[in-house]
């Protein structure tokens, strides 16, 4: 579990340079990775500003869509299985 979450953070940080609370990056305030992950996994809902931002930001949409496709979950679960073997 730790490996999975740590790996997820590392991979996303290279794709989406935003903080968990939505810090400004080059003048643009993106939605934090944990908030995107939480929305995709049913752990949280979005604030109004996050919804508004999502509709206008291809970067955040790209990350969220990636999370929805579950590619990372699959990748890290398979990696974990291989580590165990």
């Amino acid at each position, binding site marked *: 579990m730790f490996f999975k979450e740590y790996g997820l953070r590392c991979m996303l940080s290279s794709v989406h340079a935003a903080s968990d609370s939505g810090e400004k990056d080059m003048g643009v305030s993106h939605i934090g990775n944990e908030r995107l992950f939480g929305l995709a996994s*049913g752990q949280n809902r979005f604030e109004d500003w996050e919804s508004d931002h*999502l509709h206008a930001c291809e970067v955040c949409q790209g990350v*969220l869509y990636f999370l929805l*496709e579950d590619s990372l*979950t699959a990748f890290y*679960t398979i990696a974990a299985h*291989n580590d*165990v*073997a």
Partner: protein
Amino acid sequence: MSLREGDAILILPEFARLYPASLAVVRSVRSDPFRSAFNEYTVEFANSSTEKIFEFQIIENPLDQTTLIADILFDTRKQLGSSFGRGEISIVNVVLQTNSFDVQIKIIPHSAAARSLLGHVIEREASSRLQNVEVRLMRKSMTLATTVADHRGVFRFNKVPSGDVNILVSVPDRLQRILGAFSTL
């Protein structure tokens, strides 16, 4: 899926706990300029409260059908533990159950990323497989593939990606649908 004002919706079980109820009616639509999965709906619940929700979190809910939520009754991975060996190919059996139906699914891995699914739906009272029922495989609410159970009551999906998926079986002559979730990993 294109929903309009007045359409009834069902919130997928994994998101339902964040909302007052699972069933609601669309009151307004905010279309997303990039992806339909992010269309945003204002929905009204039976208690007259309203909330906003994204398209990937919901499915349509035809008023002439009841949607039964299926729970996982059996999963070989949980029964046997996660004893995966390097290079081992393990066929996984999953049984989803409602009060009146069982959905039995066999997950056949072909590679790390792709699987086939074979399954059938059994009505327990009749102990018979349901034929010609439509089966939809979804990631969240996004349709991955749709098929129909054959004359033996068997349905099959090929090239299924690994990860969490939802399955929706329509049983129109019973005016019911079966919605369940499982992992193909």
